[in-house]
């Protein structure tokens, strides 16, 4: 039934002289998203609109699902094409369309005609009221409301005539690649994939770093993180996942520092390493899944102590979210089931029974002095032996 999709984009329409950059990025992302969908599509920018034209047989559900995952799209309008065979035929087509698309036939509506082809014999206003009249005649319970219609019936006169009235909500946000790049600290949990998704939704390209601690964490735990990165990449595009072997650093901290400070010190080293990789690879910030007070290492004091080692902005999109809100998003973006697989991640292996919840940065720094002898070397080795997996 539908031969093309009109793509609505909100926010990026108001970006002034940079507008074309955003539109081009969106076109690129749409093409990328449709790459794996069966069928032939043409994505084009015309008069401040983006159209996806379907050139072959295609699967409607699959196509809409793919488009719903593209950041920057506010709405997707499935469009019916009819040939221009005179106004009477158009009226018949529009009535038939209305019945199919809005079968309850008891709505308020308004016709919104637009002439891209100016040689059409009627002008927009004439088309509006003539088609409105035909619909009113056909369906006695349907009423006109020009201010607040339930159905806004769009009729566009082009080479063919385009009819559309439904808007499927899109993912919103901004097209990936329009806002630089950031480095996500990805664990195997529920929060970090959601954090990555949320920042990617603002147009930021994502890379990720995972801290692997064999033999304390298994190959399966690593595979789980790769799988999570792949799930996030459905939205964010390809993710370069940096895998850092963290075991020796962790054991060294265990050996030299008070055990109730282990998690904080460990996290400080994770941030240092993540920032190092971020700088090397062109990321402009770090992303974490932290949320205030969720665990001992995420109290305000702990966050301050962890943040203190970084100079880059640390983006924490979940900072004020309740756990359930985060779970809801992870369910929506399909990462939840993978996140809850029972493999240990490196944060939980040596966790103390009573870790500090209000760490004092000065005391933590003093403890870190115990590491001076070997830590730089260990960090360097960890960086040198990193493994990079491209997840897409």
């Amino acid at each position: 039934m539908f031969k093309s999709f009109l793509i609505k984009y909100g926010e990026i329409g108001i970006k002034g002289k940079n507008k074309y950059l955003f539109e081009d990025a969106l076109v690129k992302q749409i093409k990328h998203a449709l790459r794996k969908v069966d069928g032939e599509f043409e994505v084009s920018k015309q008069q401040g609109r983006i159209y996806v034209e379907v050139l072959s047989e295609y699967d409607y559900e699959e196509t809409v699902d793919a488009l719903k995952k593209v950041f920057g799209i506010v709405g997707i309008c499935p469009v019916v094409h009819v040939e221009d065979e005179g106004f009477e035929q158009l009226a018949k087509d529009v009535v038939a369309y209305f019945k199919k698309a809005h079968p309850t036939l008891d709505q308020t509506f308004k016709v919104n005609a637009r002439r891209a082809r100016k040689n059409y014999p009627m002008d927009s206003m004439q088309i509006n009221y003539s088609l409105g009249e035909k619909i009113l005649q056909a369906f006695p319970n349907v009423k006109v409301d020009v201010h607040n219609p339930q159905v806004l019936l769009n009729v566009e006169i082009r080479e063919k005539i385009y009819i559309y009235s439904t808007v499927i909500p899109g993912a919103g946000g901004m097209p990936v690649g329009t806002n630089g790049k950031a480095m996500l600290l990805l664990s195997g949990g529920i929060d970090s994939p959601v954090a990555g998704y949320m920042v990617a939704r603002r147009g930021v390209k994502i890379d990720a770093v995972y801290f692997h601690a064999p033999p304390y964490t298994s190959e399966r735990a690593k595979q789980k993180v790769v799988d999570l990165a792949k799930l996030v990449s459905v939205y964010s595009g390809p993710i370069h996942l940096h895998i850092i072997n963290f075991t020796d650093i962790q054991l060294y901290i265990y050996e030299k520092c008070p055990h109730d400070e282990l998690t904080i010190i460990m996290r400080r080293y994770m941030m240092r390493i993540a920032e190092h990789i971020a700088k090397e690879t062109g990321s402009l910030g770090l992303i974490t899944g932290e949320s205030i007070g969720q665990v001992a290492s995420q109290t305000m004091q702990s966050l301050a102590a962890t943040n203190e080692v970084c100079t880059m902005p640390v983006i924490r999109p979940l900072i004020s979210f309740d756990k359930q809100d985060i779970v809801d998003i992870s369910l929506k973006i399909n990462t939840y089931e993978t996140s809850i697989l029972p493999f240990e991640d490196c944060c939980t292996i040596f966790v103390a029974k009573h870790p500090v919840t209000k760490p004092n940065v000065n005391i933590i720094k003093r403890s870190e002095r115990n590491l001076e002898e070997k830590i730089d070397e260990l960090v360097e080795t960890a960086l040198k032996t990193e493994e990079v997996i491209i997840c897409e």
Partner: protein
Amino acid sequence: MECYLDNSATTKCFEEVKDIVINAMTKDYANPSSMHIKGVEAEKYLKQSKEIIASTLKVNEKELFFTSGGTESNNLAIIGSAMANIRTGKHLITTIIEHPSVINTMKYLEEQGFRVTYLPVDEAGIVSLEELDKAICDDTILVSIMYVNNEIGSVQPIDKIAQMIKEKNPNTLFHVDAIQGFGKYKIYPKRLNIDLLSASGHKINGPKGVGFCYISEKVKIKPIAFGGGQQKGMRSGTENVPGIAGIGMAVLKTYENFEEKIDNLYRLKSYFVEEISKLEGVYLNGKTGLDSAPHIVSASFLHVRSEVLLHALESKEIYVSAGSACASNKPTVSPTLKAIGVEKELLDSTIRFSFSFETTKEELSYCLDALKEILPKLRIYKRH
């Protein structure tokens, strides 16, 4: 040195098995039910495998049914016989250390209105004959007990159990889950008074996805899957010819020079047990001598988490299981280890080493050296 000590999870295929499987897939690939000559060629593989297994077990060929593996064999034997004998009684008996494919099948039957008695075991993992004696009633239709336990290698006194069942209630059927025992023992169901017996291909160097169920012709049983009526309607579905050819070959090869191979396994086991006992903080679970299975050693390592030890061994190409890998990769407490009274702090510290006929003393010695090196290191960094 690669050192695969996880043979109770699964084994490597024999070369001869691989060859016959490939032939059945690429050369004689027809449907054995087809009437043409190619169908006949395919059917030959089924006949040949049946002959091998029938003569190994000393049973009739018509008493053998091929399945998709141990789990299906256990399901067929238990559900099929319970449903067929529902008018005689609704009582079933098993043990608390059975494999999940038996335990969960029993739980399903409890939901269907059957009564199930779960027999306890002693600290060696052996079922108590006294308890069995007490449990058998007039309406007991089936007793299902495993031959060899998959986690600790304990061996049940199958002959005595069978004798007791038949003495107390001649109508009660006896099913033996021999998935870990077949291929390590010579099992003759008729002589032992076993009515139903389950076995699996991939535990004896055969392919995965194939097993068989011996069903004595005297047993009243119903199928649990329905279809085109293959295998006399007991197990419908086009026969898995490559798998069946493979399991037949695996049985044939397994029982060649059998005593010699088993003696060698026991020698390896006794060496391993002796050496590992010398290490500090190591506790062996169940029996370890000739009265235990030749291929399984279960050991608990004080203050070491089994998952971490497993991965540390993995980094040296030594592959073992923590608890029972076959059950799932979920770190849950093993009911078997609990049942034999393994102390709480050791439950999460237990590793299963399981051998095959290809295991060598060099491999075991390499594994022992690795343990000597790894254990002290892991014990420095313990969880609080």
